[in-house]
């Protein structure tokens, strides 16, 4: 997928003016915190589990080479094949080679963020193979040619009218005057259409929420059951997974799964959590004849041992974006690449380079909510700060920002000058805002005052007030 992350500012400005997007954001925003809080209330051990989740992931990352090798060995023992891929190109080639070898014409797909990262669909299409997204949200996005805007609810930015319009456009074999009285009518139509695709597909591609080292299994988590149909009905199952998905044992996976659904959708557990291990066994009535795992690095191994290693703990639950004021102002597309929200602001620069994602680590109010809800306690704000530092060091931040920071840096090293200047500024602003107590415009701060007023200072700086109160014996 092509990145428009450098245009974050322009993307965000457009998003703020988009009434249909704002309608969807307003509808969804209050739902997430309430759902997660209710699920958390049903599991008093939730906070203790977050520490456990963090520790399991840290332990695995510290021995990632060992667990990957163990996992791969066990995949092969159970009759599956592992394809190691360093780059997105390698992974695309591996998937295509399997599809071509088995003469695939159509491929069904379960929801997978890594497949977005690799742009698998475009690659298959370019070679005459038809990919069909089967997750409801991904299905409508494929029809509309849009990228997902959220890692769990990829199409939540669409309204009902958008669904109806798109379905009328592509399902032309159905009566044009049919009525979608309820949301469920839309869903039933998609279900019927996709059933045909599930049955016709030659290959099914799914992602993986976890890989289990001890058994060589891959795990998918869905509510719809589309992932299960994708991996059960076609002759060949291909799993796309990035290297950091591995965990040592089932017990480790279950502890993380206790966190996943609660953090993601506020469910106690998702509807379908499915463990796949190898291909169809003797006597089985169903299941794929071939089981492949394309395990992808694509920039992750370079994060190991750096200040960004903690990001590899991410279990893609979306809690950070679900609780993010910036995300809910501008939506997911503004972030310009596959991963939006706070986790995207940290991960995207690691995967595609800070020069291509520069603006994202600035898309934050540093309120800290993301870190406080992250089930594996990833210090997202701290890592965004690391990226800002790198951006500054590499002279990637805009000249205005650099000069401003330069002036400020000079001032704070000279406390006497700083105090005089702030005193003057506080006095001046107080005078300016004397009548209303607020300032509706300010030189150099139009961006800030365009959306709100600045409360006028009372005429005294913090330093001055602190010193006065101390003198008066009030502190």
């Amino acid at each position, binding site marked *: 997928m092509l990145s428009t992350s450098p245009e974050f500012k322009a993307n965000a400005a457009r998003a703020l003016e988009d009434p249909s997007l704002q309608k969807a954001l307003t509808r969804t925003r209050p739902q997430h915190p309430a759902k997660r809080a209710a699920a958390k209330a049903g599991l008093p051990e939730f906070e203790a589990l977050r520490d456990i989740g963090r520790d*399991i992931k840290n332990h695995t990352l510290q021995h990632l080479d060992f667990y990957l090798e163990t996992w791969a060995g066990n995949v092969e023992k159970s009759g599956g094949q592992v394809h190691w891929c360093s780059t997105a190109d390698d992974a695309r080639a591996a998937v295509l080679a399997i599809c071509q070898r088995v003469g695939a014409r159509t491929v069904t797909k379960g929801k997978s963020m890594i497949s977005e990262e690799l742009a698998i669909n475009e690659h298959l299409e370019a070679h005459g193979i038809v990919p069909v997204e089967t997750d409801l949200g991904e299905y409508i996005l494929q029809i509309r040619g849009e990228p997902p805007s959220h890692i769990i609810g*990829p199409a939540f930015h*669409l309204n009902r009218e958008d669904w109806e319009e798109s379905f009328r456009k592509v399902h032309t074999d159905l009566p044009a005057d049919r009525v979608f009285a309820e949301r469920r009518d839309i869903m039933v139509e998609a*279900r019927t259409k996709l059933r045909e695709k599930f049955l016709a597909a030659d290959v099914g591609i799914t992602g993986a929420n976890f890989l289990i080292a001890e058994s060589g299994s891959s795990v998918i988590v869905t*509510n*719809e059951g589309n992932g299960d149909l994708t991996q059960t009905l076609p002759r060949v199952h291909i799993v796309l997974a990035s290297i950091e998905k591995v965990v040592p044992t089932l017990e480790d996976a279950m502890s993380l799964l206790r966190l996943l659904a609660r953090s993601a959708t506020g*469910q106690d557990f998702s509807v379908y959590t499915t463990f796949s291990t*190898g291909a169809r066994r003797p006597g089985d009535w169903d299941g794929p004849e071939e089981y492949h795992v394309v395990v992808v690095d694509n920039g992750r191994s370079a994060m190991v*041992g750096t200040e960004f290693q903690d990001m590899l703990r991410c279990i893609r639950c979306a809690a950070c974006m679900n609780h993010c004021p910036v995300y809910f102002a501008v939506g997911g597309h503004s972030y310009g690449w596959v991963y939006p929200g706070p986790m995207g602001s940290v991960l995207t620069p690691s995967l595609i380079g800070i020069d291509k994602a520069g603006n994202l680590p600035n898309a934050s109010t540093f309120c800290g909510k993301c870190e406080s809800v992250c089930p594996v306690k990833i210090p997202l704000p701290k890592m965004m700060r690391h990226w800002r530092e790198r951006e500054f060091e590499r002279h990637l931040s805009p000249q205005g920002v650099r000069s401003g920071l330069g002036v400020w840096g000079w001032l704070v090293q000279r406390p006497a000058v700083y105090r005089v200047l702030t005193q003057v500024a506080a006095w001046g602003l107080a005078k300016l805002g004397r009548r209303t107590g607020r300032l509706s415009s300010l030189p150099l701060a139009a961006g800030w005052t365009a959306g709100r007023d600045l409360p006028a200072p009372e005429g005294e700086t913090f330093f001055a007030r602190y010193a006065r109160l101390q003198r008066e014996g009030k502190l």
Partner: protein
Amino acid sequence: MSRDAILGAIRRGLKRGPLPEDQAFALRARLVGHPRHLTPARSIGTHAELVSRFVANVEKEFGTLTRVPDLAGVPGAVADYLAAQNLPTDFAMSPHPELTQDIPWHLRPMLQIRVGRAAASDLVCVQQGYAGIAETGTLMLPSAPERPTTINLLGDTAIVVLRASRIVGPYEDAWAWLRQRVDPVSGGFMPRNVMLVTGPSRSADIESVLELGAHGPRRLHIVLVEDAPAP
């Protein structure tokens, strides 16, 4: 080779070569011991408590449930459920001996049963429940020749016959049962496919409003056979 490149890059990041044998040994011991972490209080209790928690959680997740005293009660429970839902009396059923041999289906001659895997046209499928997990009202359904995966997925209505003695508290207890088997292919314990199913299929993709029956079954009904020892 990509494999060596990836492992090499990870090791460079970790500032070491391949793991020294003593450390690898410790990790292998962790795999063999597969220690449990925290067991939540909601998954602990007497068996009777766990059964009622299982029932409550199934219902919370939009599943339905009928309790029958023994396997002889199953045909009646299935027939009555189908009638109440206005569903046809023919269904696909797993070739599990507990279903095919132990249940006296002749008690309800109206029921027409096709044994095997499910087809896309099946409206109703009947599966044998391997375990029920009280913690979240979850069913464990491992694949096997006698328990095809399509039976869990293709029907519009999924019915699962579960013995109450197969209800455990936490997920780990159900895995502990499965860990005892030896697979003829891999030599390991894992079946090809293990589904943990919690309620009927659903989606909130359209305007973030929950609707049941996305791609999998729209209804999940459990016939719970009370074979549990008295608490």
